């Protein structure tokens, strides 16, 4: 066991062992904690969440870097399982990182990262490897960004929350099927859903003044613009509006320009739906336009320092900026980890509506 300085100026204790066992890893975690606590009683282990991540070994470093960049929303114990072809033994590295408290009478937090190199054959019995290493009584979130579907079945008894990104699947229907399947047994945090959060907040705010509330019942057009890789996010945003406003949706048509078009039935009117890819530097959604048959339309488009808002009401146009800092992909992943402790009852209905549209 070694004490080292890490790249973010925090210190860390490190343990490594080749051809190891889960029991040895668990013992190392306990020993590192005991030693560090004996050296400094002002340090306490964070106890928020177990995050189990299963990745292809080629992406292990990249994933570890992504997880480091989530900032303050770091899980307290992260178990990163890297799948290596033809591997039969377990190699492990435990990193217990901590920052010394600024105030000598204060306390500092310890975060634990366990990296385990596993082989494909280990995946079916992954629970026997992970279970001894997680902190009991904490919620456990599982993320498998490179497929490895058997991970979820293997860890089903341990899993409280599944983290996924519906935008990662090449085809949105497959992504929605996977998410709906996971919803049966676990709570799902979908990064594609979290990409829609600022848009949902702003749309909710736009129709919040009582005098505008009635306009929700007059909507006859919804257009959503998205980057090439965020079709699922766009469909989830449309699904959210449909489920919140009781629109009856059916499959949309896919045009040659990869645009989805169709209609939803809302009370006594139809709502024209259009979901189209646009060129933009940033991943995620690019804009949304809501129009009505009473001469009102609202557009929100991604821009510097927030969203550019444009309205037409009674023939008069107005444009302004709705302020907000872009979270970036690292911020969205961090938000995904944080959401493991919350529950959003609107995702399931939005997902069901989105699935019906594709």
């Amino acid at each position, binding site marked *: 066991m070694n004490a080292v300085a890490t790249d973010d100026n925090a210190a860390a204790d490190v343990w490594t062992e080749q051809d190891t066992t889960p029991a040895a890893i668990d013992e190392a975690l306990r020993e590192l904690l005991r030693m560090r606590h004996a050296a400094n009683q002002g340090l306490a282990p964070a106890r928020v969440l177990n995050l189990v991540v299963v990745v292809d070994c080629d992406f292990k470093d990249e994933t570890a870097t992504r997880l480091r960049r989530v900032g303050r929303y770091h899980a307290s114990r992260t178990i990163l399982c890297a799948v290596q072809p033809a591997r039969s033994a377990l190699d492990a590295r435990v990193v217990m990182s901590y920052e010394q408290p600024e105030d000598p009478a*204060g306390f500092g*937090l310890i975060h634990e990262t366990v990296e385990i190199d596993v082989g494909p054959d280990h995946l079916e019995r992954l629970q026997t490897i992970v279970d001894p290493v997680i902190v009991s009584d904490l919620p456990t979130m599982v993320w498998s960004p490179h497929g490895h579907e058997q991970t979820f079945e293997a860890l089903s008894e341990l899993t409280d929350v599944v983290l996924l990104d519906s935008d990662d699947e090449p085809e949105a229907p497959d992504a929605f099927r996977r998410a709906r399947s996971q919803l049966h047994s676990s709570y799902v945090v979908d990064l594609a859903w979290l990409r829609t959060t600022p848009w949902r907040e702003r749309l909710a705010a736009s129709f919040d003044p009582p005098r505008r509330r009635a306009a929700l019942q007059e909507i006859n057009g919804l257009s959503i613009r998205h980057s090439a890789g965020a079709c699922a996010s766009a469909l989830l945003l449309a699904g959210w509006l449909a489920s919140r406003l009781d629109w009856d949706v059916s499959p949309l048509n896919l045009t040659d320009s990869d645009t989805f078009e169709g209609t939803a039935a809302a009370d006594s009117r139809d709502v024209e739906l259009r979901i189209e890819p646009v060129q933009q530097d940033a991943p995620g959604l690019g804009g949304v336009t809501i129009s009505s048959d009473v001469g009102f339309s609202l557009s929100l488009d991604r821009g510097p320092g927030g969203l550019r808002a444009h309205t037409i009401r009674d023939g008069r146009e107005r444009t302004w900026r709705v302020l907000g*800092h872009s979270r970036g992909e690292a911020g969205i992943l961090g938000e995904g980890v944080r959401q493991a*402790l919350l529950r959003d009852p*609107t995702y399931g209905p939005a997902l069901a509506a989105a699935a019906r549209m594709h």
Partner: protein
Amino acid sequence: MATASVQPAVHEEDNPLVAGLERLPVRPTAITIFGGTGDLAHRKILPALYNLAHEGALPERFELIGIARSPHSDDEFREVARGSIERYSRTKPDPDVLDGLLSDIRYLSGSFDDADVYRRIAQTLQDFEEQDGQPLNHIFYLSTAPQFFPVIARALGEADLARTEGVDTRIVIEKPFGYDLDSARELNATVLDVFEEDQVYRIDHYLGKETVQNLLAFRFANALFEPVWNRNYIDNVQITAAEDIGIGGRASYYEHAGALRDLVQNHMLQLLALLTIEPPASFEANRLRDEKVKLLESIPQPKPREVGKIALRAQYSAGVSGGEQVPGYRQEEGVDPHSRTETYAALRLGISNWRWAGVPFYLRTGKRLSRKVTEIAVTLKPVPHLALRSEGSVGVTPNQLVLMVQPDEGVSISLGAKIPGPRLRIRPVNMEFHYGTSFMSQSPEAYERLILDAMRGDATLFTRNDEIEALWGIIDPVLTAWREDTRSPIRQYPAGSAGPAAASSLLLPGHDWRRL
């Protein structure tokens, strides 16, 4: 431990798009800050507004007007605000967001009693509404010296700015709200002559702290403690707000305030109230405040002859703090060398109701004490019969539950435990919980939460008129007695110490102050 959920669902019933959102919508708003170039605006209000903008929490249309006596152009005020935000914001400013926030900021200079200032405010608000194409809610934020609070409130009324049809108008008033009970009543009367109570948001920023709101979660989200939360099991309670720093550059304020007004009348009595109120039926603003008022009115106001027995004041003298030699209070710059202002205050209070009758509540606060700590220590009664022998050990001590407010937020419970070995010997051990180990979120600044609540119309964390008067009513007899006593020497305690030794005289037999 469960998180507090003290905000009511403000619009959820009506707006189908609100369900599931963490951040509830805020209606379009214009905030007018009186004292826009002052220290509070500089350090707290403007950075809080920026952070709300950064997080995307400001309303879709948001306008800002700064008002102060010094002459500035809009551009000059914009640069002042930019400097404040860049220096004090808890997040690194995004230049695009910052530019957006400040792009249309306005500044009006003039005296707070000048009717023309208010005509210009009305005109500016009207210009904003025409430009934005919709009515804006109005918030008038009084961040001035307290003598201007009644002046501004009256002037807003005379300019017909207290009510505007079709929009919500609110007035936010900083502390101190009054100087004593009479002045608080007078200020309430002036403000309520112009505004309805539900338009008035009296700020005690302490209530905006997550740590203080967590008291509600601790009490009302955990069944574990409620059965013992009464006179049958609790022996005494100590509330401590100790600071290791002196008065800094605040001599002119502190000389008139003193420790009792500065911390006890507001923050510490709020902690006491949240610790001891009955469970409210809901966390709707008035339900919670009804319970607080009921509790505060159950604290007997000391009679003049009792003050010497239940209250004690002192001043720090020169000493060593943090290894440095520091001056005494009377030697601080701007302080009267014969000042009788207290920098330390301790009180023993009681609560005359069925739950708490007979339980002493000890409060102490001071500057230049040995360390910075705010905590509530609840000591339970000893077990009724002790079959265990205590020879050869520290023995069994009553359980103590400590709610740590700052610098670290958490809960500590002392328990009796057996010392390993062949004999049954007992010593107290601590079971500690730190909020920082269990939550990933960074707490927002209190001002961010409070400004957002004021814009949203949620007064839960603001102080109501009767609550303010109940708070002053408790300490007013002490203030009066201390003011009238011009002859007794003011006790001194060395800077860097735990306070005056005489503070023990307030304690009932068998009780000791907790070590800081």
